[in-house]
């Protein structure tokens, strides 16, 4: 479930970036609009200029012609008031009748701040009077009480930042609230998809926005389950078939072995006949081993071999196998050397004792089978860094070529191979060793022995 936090991170990142971008764009647009507004505005400046353009002569006051022209163009009226009297000493020709010609101090204050009869008015200071410009009614809006608390203005940058931060927080909260719901409905789906590969049946509630996907996952799970079931059924059938055949062969083979063995030891028979009986015994034993191997291999392959995992001392398990072989080897053709470090007395692992014994027996038996003229077999148990333990069985016998070793290590056995199997016909012994190692989460490596023959190493986790 690493993907969901990643997803959230990415979503939030995009959200923050886009909000920031929108803010920046907004400010930029506002700045541009204000900038384009500025040239045709500024009636205060016009009022200043108009006041400066007033000239005093013997006939009274007069405005310059260019100024009059400019004011007319904008349909602006003008009144010039004398500082001393408060009376109008000059006015433009287009002065509406409703505009008074006499002003008190409070009138002037009002006029400066606001309107005369709805005309937005702007004042400019002349040499000894005040000019009032009246703009058309719908040309300007005036803020009548332009004063703010000083602290408010002083704190404005801080306030703006706080408001921005609050905005961001609010957006984030809204976003999270909206998305949590979505993610909640996504979570079972991702869980379901991740559970699919484990082979567990997946049943999701088919509700909410993603119900269709949930339904699809449920269907996929059903298909997988039924496929697994079919596969398992086939494997079970195959393993059962092998088990059945090997069971049915045991009783007849008992009789072959039993009678042949009696004939072999019957002193009344000529030596030659007894030799033949001995061959029958030997070959039926081979068949017996083959049946056992085939059965075990098929069960291990299809995970039908019940394993009895318990804590065992690997050293004593391997030691028992070695001693059993030494006790059996009456002729002394196959001496076994125990090379385990004498200070290493216990290596405790979780394992199936009988399977481990079987694996080691198979390896020793392999050395015996492939060296008819006898060989020394070397067995050692090692522990490395308390993490892995190794069982090494090697011999000084005929060994194998590099090519053969490569094949033993890498090509699949015919029992587990789905290709043409006409060329591979080696025994099941090594396959079983590999399967047993795999059942214990271990590995097997086959290589040249330093003693001249073959060496097989089983590596098991401690």
């Amino acid at each position, binding site marked *: 479930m690493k993907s969901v936090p990643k997803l959230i991170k990415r979503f939030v990142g995009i959200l923050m970036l886009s909000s920031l971008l929108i803010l920046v764009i907004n400010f930029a647009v506002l700045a541009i609009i204000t900038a384009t507004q500025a040239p045709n505005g500024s009636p205060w400046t016009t009022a200043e200029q108009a006041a400066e353009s007033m000239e005093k002569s013997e006939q009274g006051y007069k405005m310059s012609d260019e100024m009059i022209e400019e004011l007319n163009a904008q349909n602006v009226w003008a009144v010039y008031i004398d500082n001393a009297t408060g009376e109008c000493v000059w006015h433009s020709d287009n002065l509406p009748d409703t505009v008074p010609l006499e002003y008190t101090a409070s009138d002037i204050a009002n006029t400066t701040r606001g309107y005369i009869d709805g005309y937005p008015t702007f004042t400019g200071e002349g040499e000894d009077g005040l000019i009032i410009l009246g703009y058309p009614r719908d040309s300007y809006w005036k803020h009548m009480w332009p004063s703010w608390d000083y602290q408010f203005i002083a704190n404005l940058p801080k306030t703006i930042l706080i408001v921005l931060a609050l905005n961001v927080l609010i957006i984030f909260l809204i976003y999270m609230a909206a998305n949590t719901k979505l993610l909640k409905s996504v979570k079972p789906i991702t869980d379901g998809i991740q559970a699919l590969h484990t082979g567990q049946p997946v049943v999701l509630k088919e509700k909410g926005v993603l119900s269709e996907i949930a339904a699809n996952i449920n269907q996929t799970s059903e298909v997988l389950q039924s496929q697994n079931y079919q596969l398992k059924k086939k494997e079970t059938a195959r393993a059962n078939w092998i088990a059945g055949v090997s*069971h049915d062969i*045991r009783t007849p083979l*008992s009789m072959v072995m*039993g009678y042949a*063995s009696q004939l072999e030891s019957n002193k009344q028979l000529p030596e030659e006949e007894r030799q033949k009986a001995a061959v029958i015994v030997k070959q039926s034993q081979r068949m017996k081993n083959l049946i056992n191997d085939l*059965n075990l291999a098929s069960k291990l392959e299809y995970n039908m071999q019940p394993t009895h995992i318990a804590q065992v001392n690997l050293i004593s398990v391997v*030691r028992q196998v070695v001693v059993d072989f030494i006790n059996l080897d009456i002729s002394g053709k196959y001496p076994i050397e125990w090379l385990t470090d004498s200070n290493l007395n216990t290596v405790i692992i979780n394992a199936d004792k009988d399977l481990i014994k079987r694996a080691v027996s198979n390896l020793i038996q392999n050395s015996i089978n492939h060296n008819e003229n006898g060989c020394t077999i070397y067995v050692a148990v090692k522990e490395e860094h308390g993490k892995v333990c190794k069982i090494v069985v090697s011999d000084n016998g005929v060994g194998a070529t590099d090519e053969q070793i490569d094949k033993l290590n890498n090509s699949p056995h015919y029992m587990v191979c789905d290709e043409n199997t006409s060329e591979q016909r080696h025994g099941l012994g090594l396959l079983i060793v590999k399967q047993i190692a795999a059942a214990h989460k271990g590995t097997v490596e086959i290589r040249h022995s330093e003693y001249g023959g073959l060496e097989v190493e089983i590596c098991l986790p401690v």
Partner: protein
Amino acid sequence: MDFDYLKQKRILLVDDEQELLDMVSSIFTNEGFCNVKTAKTVKEALCIAETFQPELAILDVMLPDGNGFDLMKQLKNKSDYPVLFLTARGEDEDKFRGFGLGADDYIVKPFLPKELIYRVNAILRRSYKGENPIVKLSGSEIDFDRAEVIKNGEHIALTAKEHDILAALYRNAGRIVTLDALCEAAWGDNPYGYENSLMAHIRRIREKIEVNPSQPVSLITIKGLGYKLIVGDK
């Protein structure tokens, strides 16, 4: 070692195949066992057991009118004697079930006559102990019943542990017994970490049985693996 008295023991064979019964009977006859009776069904087996009073039963697991495990229970209810299973079912589960119910051994077909005889002898020997013979070694004798060693006419007592260790070695005389098996014989089921104690006991046993304990000839060390008891006076 003379086990002729074991050959007189009454053995009951139960298997549903006549030919197998014939063959197993012939194996026993060849080996000198003279009291062998056979049965093909559970019913017949119970009937014969009434009068024959077997001292060892060898049973197949699958029988036409029942299974060997149940038959064993019924037989053992009457009188407790060793039972050995001889069966084509080699599954571990079956083995555990057999042993769990009190079977003395379990042989999976096919088997060699030698193996069967060896195991039957072992069971009989365990179940019907005769007088424990006095075991002769190269320089001394062991009397297991009295737990003592007789060396140069002198009687030396064996401790309980020494007795257990020697008995385990004697049961496998001439064969290597692993360190682990010896520890188990002396200290029971969880015999880890006793290797050094075992060495000390072996040293003391040697002092008792060997003429020259520093150069043992009867109790041999097999380095790293275990010990071997050589029986007989050569």
